[in-house]
């Protein structure tokens, strides 16, 4: 497995590096522009979509690239959102600094939960991740002076970006800001997963024992990846807090974690594009269908999940991609 991956991605010469930079900018930029132009009245929703997308990307780093089974990732996202909310209420108004606060608190949360979760494999690992999530949820309810408890933390009013662009009801600023953040994060992550560190993580996922034999210190590497993942989730949480101005208990909840996992697997874990694709498609559909009836939506998602496990275990992204390749190959043949 590992050998295959390395052979697909040869050492990066300058053109490849440029391509790595240019493709995300162009693709996400185009998608973003399309969203802005086609759905100018849905920007609030699209902005929220971007922050959840960051959570899914973050989840991909640990699930897809390290093979860690977790159902508690929203804890990181939510804690960062609460931290950002509190920082903002305390008077820190600059959105970029707030983003840094989110990233930092995400880092801390990621390292802590990574240290606990990645010590184990299989069931204990899964259960620990769930327990951490629930623990954070119960604490968030209890510490209502910091979180507002069930009432939510409100009154978050960030200042202008660079002192110029203010946030308004129509979410234009918020949307473009979030889009820019997404593009930057995506580029950094693309570099990261192709780096020796990223490749080693994949090696650990595919064969833990072999990675140990090579002499890799597995545990610290997993914690490190968890830390990175925490930063990304934290940035997502920060965007959520900045853009909606309210942070509720749902941001740390089990359902948010489960939903993120579903999106990831839908798109295809182990590929950043898969995570992006899954998050966008899932939320777009959810937005349309669940407005009509949330329970029908649940049924639909359930059926989709079952179908994916049965027919496209790699996720929809790779399935579509391979079908496309096959079609092209067939088309090329005279």
């Amino acid at each position, binding site marked *: 497995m590992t050998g295959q991956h390395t052979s697909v991605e040869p050492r990066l010469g300058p053109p490849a590096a440029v391509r790595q930079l240019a493709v995300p900018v162009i693709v996400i930029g185009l998608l973003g522009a399309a969203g802005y132009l086609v759905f100018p009245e849905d920007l609030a929703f699209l902005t929220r979509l971007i922050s959840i997308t960051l959570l899914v990307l973050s989840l991909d780093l640990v699930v897809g690239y390290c093979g860690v089974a977790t159902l508690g990732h929203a804890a990181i996202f939510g804690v960062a959102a609460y931290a950002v909310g509190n920082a903002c209420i305390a008077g820190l108004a600059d959105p970029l600094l707030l983003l840094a606060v989110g990233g930092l608190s995400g880092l801390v949360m990621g390292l802590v939960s990574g240290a606990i979760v990645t010590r184990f494999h299989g069931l204990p690992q899964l259960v620990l991740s769930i327990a951490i999530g629930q623990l954070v949820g119960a604490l968030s309810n209890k510490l209502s002076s910091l979180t507002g408890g069930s009432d939510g933390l409100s009154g978050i009013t960030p200042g202008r970006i660079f002192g110029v662009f203010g946030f308004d009801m129509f979410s234009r600023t918020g949307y473009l800001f979030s889009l820019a953040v997404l593009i930057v994060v995506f580029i950094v992550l693309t570099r990261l997963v192709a780096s020796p560190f990223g490749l080693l993580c994949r090696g650990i996922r595919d064969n833990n024992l072999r990675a140990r034999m090579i002499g890799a210190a597995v545990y610290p590497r997993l914690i490190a990846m968890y830390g990175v993942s925490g930063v990304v989730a934290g940035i997502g949480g920060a965007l959520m807090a900045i853009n909606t101005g309210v942070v509720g208990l749902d941001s740390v909840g089990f359902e948010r974690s489960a939903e993120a996992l579903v999106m990831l697997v839908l798109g295809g874990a182990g590929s950043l594009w898969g995570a992006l694709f899954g998050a966008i498609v899932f939320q777009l559909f959810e937005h349309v269908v669940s407005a009509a009836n949330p329970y029908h939506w649940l049924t639909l998602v359930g059926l989709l999940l079952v179908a994916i496990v*049965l027919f496209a275990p790699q996720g929809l992204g790779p399935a579509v991609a391979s079908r496309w390749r096959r079609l092209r190959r067939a088309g090329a043949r005279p």
Partner: protein
Amino acid sequence: MMNTVLSIGLDAVSYGMVLFTISIGLSIMMGLMRVVNLAHGAFAMIGGYFASYAIKQLGLNYPFAIVVAVLGTIVISAPLEMLLYRRIYRGAGELTQLLLTIGVTFVIIGLANYVFGPTTKSIPVPAMLSGPFDLGFRMIPTHRLFVVACGLTTALALWLLIERTDFGVRLRAAVDNGDMAEALGIRTQVIYSMTFAIAVGLGAFGGVVGAELMPIEPSYALRYMVTFLVVVSVGGAGSIPGALAASLLLGLADTTGKYLAPEFGEFFFYLAVIVIVFLFPNGLLGRAQ
């Protein structure tokens, strides 16, 4: 003071027994088939709906309604076993199992809402089991005593089934070494299917008798999805005494927490989980895998 400690202990035992009755089915399934079945709560919920429907619409009495609930749930789950669960026994990774069973749960929730509506469905208990029961030093809901009895009976019956019957011997063989058992002529697929039915039936049974504490409504399956999984992993998958110990211990953590500091919610429950799983990754009485 003594009185209070006793009372909390009693509440803990009865809550623990509800946890046990529902979780034990999952524990067996996870011990034998190694399936992390997040849909177990959904099956318990189906049992609850059956019982509620049987009593309120069909006018059946309580014991009969329980039988209907257990059998009905097994019948509904059988096609799921054949079409879906069979693919994820043993071999499949956790992630695949999680997704498939979350998917099944979502579908069941959606359908439950479609068929029964979003509101709580009560399961009326017979007069004999409702109201308070005087223990001398305190009153306790009669129904709780019934639940404790159900839990103990279940544990005993399962123990007998596994230790004293022919089926139990085959089952243990399949757990210890599936391939060897197959080679010796034990049809493991049949064993698996029967175990699945037993597990689901136990879940449904627990869902019905535990409905006073965990009311039946569509989000039941999601709300308690992880609770049962947590109990099983704390106890050690496949171990009946382990599940019993875990249920009682976690019941105690939860009840004491609720008595001393109710505003903390499930904090103590999950704190206990983290500590125990950290110290005993294979569960209190589980075997190293």
